């Protein structure tokens, strides 16, 4: 059992052997991974020590105090939050050894090739085909809403390998090389003016069978791990009080008394309370996870997050009065980072509209809560026993 004291000792050893001030950033991150201090709850040899997840905070605090570089988690969120737990859960030993280290150090950025123009909420209806040819799979199709595809080295991909069985059963999960000549990434401009997302066209992309994750036809099951982690990653960030969208508008309220009205005051206080309560719920969820009693609250976090972001940013535009009629910049840009609270109020208002769509729409998440948490009857499924190729489209 690795306890806090032991982790502190190992962290100090790492810092002594690789002083941050005189060590190359990447060398330090690799050394940290090899010392098992990257994500302590991962197994030994894969960046961890098999320690309780809660003890990561001990390592992070020591490293931060020593001024050690971090792996810029915001830049590699899809890899850390979605690809890594799925590879850990379903990958072969060889896949884990090949992919997890550069994923964690940020040497290789990951993106997610899941959604398609014809498969959004009904993701399992996806039509991108993967056909076996010798030791390879040949993939053809189109993916969409792909964040970071333009900077990604690898992608997690789900594709249809058997069109003759019902939709959930004919899907296989792959790790796709984004430098394959058959991968074409095109920017998809959003209502904010920038293109944070992409369309990805896959034309005769060859994926070796060694880059399949999980069994053939088991891709839907594997994808559940990715999707559950995505929702926790989007809604479950640990924040200080006023740490989210409520922060900027509260600051403006305090600094600019001339903008205040009674109506806005009532609405602001209500949203402030809801933000604080939502933060407490996230904290309670975190405490449950640490105590080894995971609760179903995670399913709800993203719902609350989306609604609050939208209401608060909408209020902020109103609060700004004449300035609320302006927008900082409509120039088409290609941001590397997804930043929900960055830029100005107008951007926040528009960007937050995506929060109730990305990572599962709020409507689908409400169904999930109703069915999986409350045990209410499932939606009628007319597609359950129909082969994918015979579905209406």
């Amino acid at each position, binding site marked *: 059992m690795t306890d806090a004291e032991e982790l502190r000792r190992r962290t100090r050893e790492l810092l002594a052997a690789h002083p941050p001030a005189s060590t190359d950033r990447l060398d330090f991150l690799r050394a940290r991974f090899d010392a098992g201090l990257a994500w302590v709850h991962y197994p030994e040899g894969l960046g961890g020590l098999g320690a309780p997840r809660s003890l990561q905070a001990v390592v992070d605090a020591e490293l931060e105090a020593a001024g050690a570089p971090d792996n810029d988690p915001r830049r590699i969120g899809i890899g850390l939050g979605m690809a890594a737990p799925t590879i850990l859960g379903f990958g072969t030993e060889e896949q884990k050894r090949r992919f997890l280290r550069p994923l964690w150090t940020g040497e290789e950025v990951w993106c997610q090739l899941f959604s398609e123009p014809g498969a959004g909420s009904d993701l399992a209806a996806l039509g991108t085909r993967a056909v076996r040819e010798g030791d390879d799979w040949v993939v053809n199709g189109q993916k969409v809403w792909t964040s970071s595809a333009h900077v990604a080295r690898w992608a997690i991909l789900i594709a249809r390998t058997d069109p003759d069985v019902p939709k959930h059963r004919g899907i296989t999960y792959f790790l796709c090389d984004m430098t394959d000549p058959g991968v074409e990434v095109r920017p998809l401009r959003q209502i904010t003016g920038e293109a944070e997302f992409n369309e990805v066209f896959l034309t005769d992309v060859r994926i070796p069978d060694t880059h399949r994750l999980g069994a053939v036809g088991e891709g839907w099951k594997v994808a559940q791990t990715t999707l559950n982690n995505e929702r926790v990653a989007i809604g479950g960030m640990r924040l200080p*009080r*006023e740490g989210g969208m409520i922060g900027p508008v509260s600051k403006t309220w305090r600094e600019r008394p001339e903008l205040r009205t009674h109506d806005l005051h009532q609405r602001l206080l209500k949203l*402030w309370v809801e933000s604080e*309560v939502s933060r407490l719920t996230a*904290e309670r969820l975190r405490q449950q996870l640490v105590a080894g009693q995971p609760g179903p*609250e995670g399913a*709800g976090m993203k719902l609350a997050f989306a609604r609050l972001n939208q209401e608060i940013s909408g209020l902020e535009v109103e609060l700004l009065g004449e300035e609320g009629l302006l927008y900082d910049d409509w120039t088409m840009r290609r941001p590397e980072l997804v930043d929900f609270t960055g830029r100005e109020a107008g951007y926040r208002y528009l960007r937050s509209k995506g929060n109730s769509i990305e990572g599962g729409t709020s409507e689908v998440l409400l169904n999930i809560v109703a069915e999986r948490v409350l045990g209410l009857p499932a939606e009628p499924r007319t597609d359950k026993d129909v082969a994918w190729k015979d579905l209406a489209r």
Partner: protein
Amino acid sequence: MEGPGPVKNERDLLYSEEEEALRAAVRDLLADQCDAPGVIARTESDTPHHLALWKTLTDGMGLAGLLVPEALGGQGATHREAAVVLEELGRAVAPVPYLTSAVVATEALLACGTDDLLRELASGTSIGVLAVALNVAPGAAHKLVRHDDGVLSGELTGIADAAVADVLLVPADDGGLYAVDATAATVTPQTSLDLTRPLATVTLDGVRGRLLGDAEPAVRRALRAGAGLLASEQFGLADRSLTETVRYLKERKQFNRPVGGFQALKHRLAQLWLESVNLRAAARNAADALTTGEDADMAVTVAQAYAAPVAVHAAEEALQLHGGLGMTWEHPAHLYLKRAKADSLAYGTAGAHREALAALVDLQAP
């Protein structure tokens, strides 16, 4: 002031094993002694309070003394345990004076250091009630009786559970808090919206009281604890309303389907679940803050600014989704609606707490 500042130590928002054991014991007792038909029948009698249940809770289980130190005959427990008891009492809309006597009056006596009365309240041999109207928020103005020539006179209204009180804690216009023997006062029941926590008027006509201490800090402390722990009762009400409604909608069939399978209803219930999960976190936060005393004003204010609309929403949805059945006197949905609505006024409305919050976090009005 520069905003609300950083959160210091994160609080323990979970339930301990001991707290879960306490919950199980209270829940078993309530299942046995406090079913809904019994509560409804009692509301129509001359004795709406369930004093036999109160005796078991206090005499048998010692729960009236949770907030009282062991040296004074209490359990030396904390607000966290009292909150768990209130969750369960809320789930059963139990007509017992727990919040009023074992929390609010007890906190006032703790503030004054009145050891003998604390002993009596802790053991449950006496029921104490703070003679301040139920809708008064912590720190808000309230009615006082006159103190002239050593006696107290005046009429106070909206005093919850006064009908079963043995001792009344009465704030007077000389700034003192007085203990008055309930038999020396005229207590007249008022026809109340919430039949399970009935109000009464208290009339004092030249009655002698015993000075306990300064009223202002004692009343403020008592009402703050009442407001904070009320959130746990409100969580109990909301959680029970939701659970019962979900259960009913899985059974009830219309259009050849369980009604709970219609997406319009599923989404409403999922929304309610989200609110109830949030309320639990806010209520645990308030209970823990009252226990440690750290940042308690903020935690109580946030909980009370959030709790009432959730409990009312849950009770209103329960009524609507039970259809005609929910509108009947026989079905217990109305008990929850009446309690939740009355609770939305108790110890200050959500709006009053939001106003208090504006000052606490420096989000001032125009």
